[in-house]
């Protein structure tokens, strides 16, 4: 189990604070949710990425000035396919990326439905980003940039067109989210999650639960 809190060793040797956030991915099947995450976390891209199996929980950090933002990224694990995503998925999520495929108008419509679902189910303070993925296929574009930008502006969403294939805007969209997330100090309360503790092998003795920032 990764340590959930504590001062991180930063590249320049000084210690900054770490904030951990739960980020969930949403969007129609095959729009490239897993590909975006794999590009962001591992720098990889597979043309024929299989449906999500066995890798639905990844972490990656982003550095901002004196703060390290650690994303705990949840993939849908295919549970979106028959609209059977568990409420647990949204629970305590502080950020969401809603993904659509710019070459497929239906996926944009679905993305709007997911945004509504988030506004209804998730925390009111959740930071939502809209990602128009597969920008490398712009010649087959079916969703206009301006249309998506207008929708995003009206709903207070971050918006970028991305390409997991060419890496366009992939790091940038995570960075933009990181900048927009509130960086609480640990003493000033929590950032959405429940103040419980995670269980891990070898747990022994009562420890104070560590959560977000230090």
């Amino acid at each position, binding site marked *: 189990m990764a340590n959930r809190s504590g001062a991180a060793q930063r590249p320049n040797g000084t210690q900054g604070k770490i904030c951990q956030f739960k980020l969930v991915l949403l969007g129609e099947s095959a729009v490239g949710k897993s590909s975006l995450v794999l590009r962001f976390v591992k720098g990889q891209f597979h043309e024929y990425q299989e449906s999500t199996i066995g890798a*639905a929980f990844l972490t990656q950090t982003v550095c901002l000035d004196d703060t390290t933002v650690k994303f705990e990224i949840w993939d849908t*694990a295919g549970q979106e396919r028959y609209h059977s995503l568990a409420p647990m998925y949204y629970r305590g999520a502080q950020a969401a990326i809603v993904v659509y495929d710019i070459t497929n108008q239906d996926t944009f419509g679905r993305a709007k439905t997911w945004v509504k679902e988030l506004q209804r189910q998730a925390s009111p303070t959740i930071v939502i980003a809209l990602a128009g993925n597969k920008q490398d296929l712009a010649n087959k574009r079916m969703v206009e940039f301006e249309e998506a930008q207008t929708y995003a502006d009206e709903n207070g969403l971050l918006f970028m067109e991305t390409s997991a294939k060419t890496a366009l805007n992939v790091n940038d969209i995570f960075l933009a989210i990181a900048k927009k997330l509130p960086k609480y100090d640990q003493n000033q309360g929590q950032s959405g999650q429940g103040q419980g503790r995670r269980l891990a092998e070898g747990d022994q003795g009562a420890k104070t639960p560590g959560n977000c920032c230090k």
Partner: protein
Amino acid sequence: MDEEYDAIVLGTGLKECIISGMLSVSGKKVLHVDRNKYYGGESASICPLEELFSKFGAPAPDESYGRGRDWNVDLIPKFLMANGSLVKLLIHTGVTRYLEFKSVEGSYVYKGGKIAKVPVDQKEALASDLMGMFEKRRFRNFLIYVQDFQQEDPKTWKDFDPNTQNMTALYEKFGLDKNTQDFTGHALALYRDDDYLNRPALETINRIKLYSDSLAKYGKSPYLYPMYGLGELPQGFARLSAIYGGTYMLDKPIDEIVLGEGGKVVGVRSGNEIAKCKQVYCDPTYVPDRVRKKGKVVRCICLLDHPIPNTKDALSTQIIIPQKQVGRNSDIYVSLVSYTHQVAAKGWFIGMVSTTVETDNPENEIKPGLDLLGAIRQKFVSVSDYYEPTDDGLESQIFISQTYDATSHFESTCMDVLDIFKRGTGEAFDISKIKRDLEDEEQ
């Protein structure tokens, strides 16, 4: 849905979700279906509060209950033993990363109309007001014996054979009186009745060890409770199953379990669609003609705006009322969780009183438990049958779980799951099949 699967799992209660996860992890192609729109079946936590009120036919809650969405009310009360099978399963499957827990603050036992803290170590035993001075010393010696006891090392058995001698004999060896036996058997070993007295002592010794090992893990009490309610548990295991390729469909009525030659299952039908499969795993509600009634459980959900009196304002508690204390054959369990577990609006508590039904007036049977709670703002009583399968499923390849019993923790739940898995697959669940790279991804 018109595809072929190794196994189709019906119902998303905790047991079915664990089984589904285990099957997917073992490389089986799984379809998991629920007739309801939500996960959890009987083990769901009800949200919002309005839904709980309407489920029990009560008028909508007034505004003093806060936001309905802040409530997640369990229908079946249970706690996790910190060192118990479910926690081990959660850790080894990695499902624990989706959940957060809190330690239950207090563990109490009822004696002579009052409640007292359950003494678990030598120090607490000596301070406890459950026993007289000489009895305390005898109980302390008993605790030390259990603590030092090692199943593999007969030297620690101290001239007692735990495999052949029964628990009554062990109590007698230490000279423990009936009262001490009562709270040891019911509040430490967590037996619901006294049958254990005549069985080999080893089983009880191991149960007491589980209690004290669990206590040693996170302190205060041996029990854990998940944030947002028990309904998170089935969702966590469902996610595990999905991650390993399991397909999920909610809100899908099941019209028929299709049998082939020799009464063996070949598929499941929903409307005009048939999904083929080699096996079905399900809860009793999907196969009413393949289960028999085993008994009844009465459960009362109580909404309180205060903690339970005489528990030092604990925000979560378990109280066990041993059968003999109130002239019964099975124990009454009282549990309390609160807004600090994100299961109730700020300032609110949820008490639950439950027991196995023994008379024609089940509500009256739980009265000793209700009386401990103080003023109750709203209460919802339910009496439900519990079922067990009529056969082991080997012929039909339909493997059926038992309904959740009245026990206060998940040990019997896990036993049933592991047993079903073994019957269904012919082998015990191999934890090492879980990809270790899941761990690596966390770094």
